[in-house]
């Protein structure tokens, strides 16, 4: 990387709910085109971390820079603009139930970006085509499978031309046979050079694609490193224990 300014830099992100500290001083920095994967047990703070990154959850403490520019949380307009540049994919898709696939992708282009309807429609069709769902554009979410819904939600995020995407366990709510269609789309987006932070239990898939694994437990970033190192030569016993369990469950690509 010649460009020294990270695309996104997060410092000392902290969040507590009542007495429970769910995120403790999490820091992370990611360069353009990188994929960092958050792993760790459920309830370890992966979702909270991702949601704090685009302020869906308000962190108690922590600073964020996008392309070297700090995001000031008190300025609402700045937050709205920042969120347009940070695409988010949720575990349970969160499509807008009253809109067709086409309108799900289109609505933010028209209502947030202020694009004309025609232009937005063309762009939405392009993005739906990219995730292989052009022929489903007039279907409502209730008429789509889980995998299709998630692909629409990826198209919806991509249409906004984000600089970075956050993926919060994008395949965890899917039937096993639907997982690969979503992973294929993510792989495509990744090979187009999208910068991404993803939490997942799909360890095999993640280790093929990730530049770095970030192991998060009890709200704490225990250790980070290249996938092979975290999976097989982790420094901490807890990381090793988790990784051996999860590779056993979900398989891995190195063996």
């Amino acid at each position: 990387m010649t460009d020294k300014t990270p695309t996104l830099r997060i410092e000392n992100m902290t969040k507590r709910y009542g007495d429970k500290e769910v995120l403790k001083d999490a820091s992370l920095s990611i360069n353009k085109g990188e994929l960092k994967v958050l792993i760790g047990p459920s309830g370890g703070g992966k979702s909270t971390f991702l949601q704090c990154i685009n302020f869906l959850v308000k962190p108690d403490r922590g600073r964020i820079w996008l392309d070297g520019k700090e995001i000031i949380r008190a300025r609402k307009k700045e937050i709205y603009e920042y969120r347009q540049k940070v695409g988010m994919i949720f575990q349970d898709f969160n499509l807008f139930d009253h809109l067709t696939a086409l309108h799900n992708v289109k609505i933010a282009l028209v209502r947030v970006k202020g694009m004309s309807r025609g232009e937005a429609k063309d762009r939405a069709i392009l993005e739906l085509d990219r995730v292989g769902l052009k022929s489903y554009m007039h279907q409502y979410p209730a008429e789509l499978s889980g995998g299709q819904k998630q692909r629409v939600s990826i198209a919806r995020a991509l249409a906004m031309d984000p600089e970075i995407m956050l993926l919060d366990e994008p395949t965890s709510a899917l039937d096993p046979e639907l997982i690969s269609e979503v992973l294929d789309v993510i792989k495509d987006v990744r090979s187009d050079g999208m910068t991404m932070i993803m939490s997942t239990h799909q360890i095999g898939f993640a280790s093929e694609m990730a530049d770095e694994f970030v192991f998060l437990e009890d709200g704490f970033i225990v250790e980070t490193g290249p996938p092979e190192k975290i999976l097989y030569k982790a420094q901490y016993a807890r990381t090793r224990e988790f990784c051996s369990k999860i590779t056993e469950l979900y398989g891995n690509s190195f063996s």
Partner: protein
Amino acid sequence: MEDLFFLQPEVVSTLVKGFFVSVKLIVPSAIFGCIIGVVVGALGVYGNSVIKKLASGYVLIFRGFPLVVQLFIWYFGLPYIGIYLSPFVAAVLGFSLCSGAYQSEYVRGAFLSVKTGQTMAAQALGFSRIKMVLFVTLPQAFRRALPGCGNEIIYLIKYSSLAYMITCIELTGEGKIIASDSFRYTETFMVIGAIYLLLTSVAAWLLHRLEYRLQLPGFEQYS
């Protein structure tokens, strides 16, 4: 009714006059009631804590005071502070505010039934709060609230009969005049009742049509 009392031109024209006054009361009250309901319901869900308290205070008062008492306050009470409303305006005001309080509770429930994930998704796309409500949650909440709101409109049609208490002579008021002039209470109020039944039936049919038209996959009301 062998003497065809209810076919006499003056009786018919009185009833028709009352009927149209009733319709003129009901239609704007229903519309204002729905608007107030949507606004107050939305504020009760998405407002900050002060606004939420104000919204629930409004509901508490306008749902808690008997409607007749509210009408008396608007018509007989306001002149004491120098505000004079015509009987018609006082009635529409009273009906709208009362209906709005009930509507807002149906709407609030419907807003709460929209999955929080969708509001998160909207925010993540850069929607401001107001745009999120207008374009994401309201279209869904409206569909879910429709059966309840329709119920309230049907109810409004019937409580519009209280307007004559503040001298806005609508269908019931005219009926009372006919009845006391002719001493035919039973027949008169049977006819009046049937006209209200007709009104509520038409309203129910229209509301059904609307529900049907707004039906989407995932929002089915009819199987």
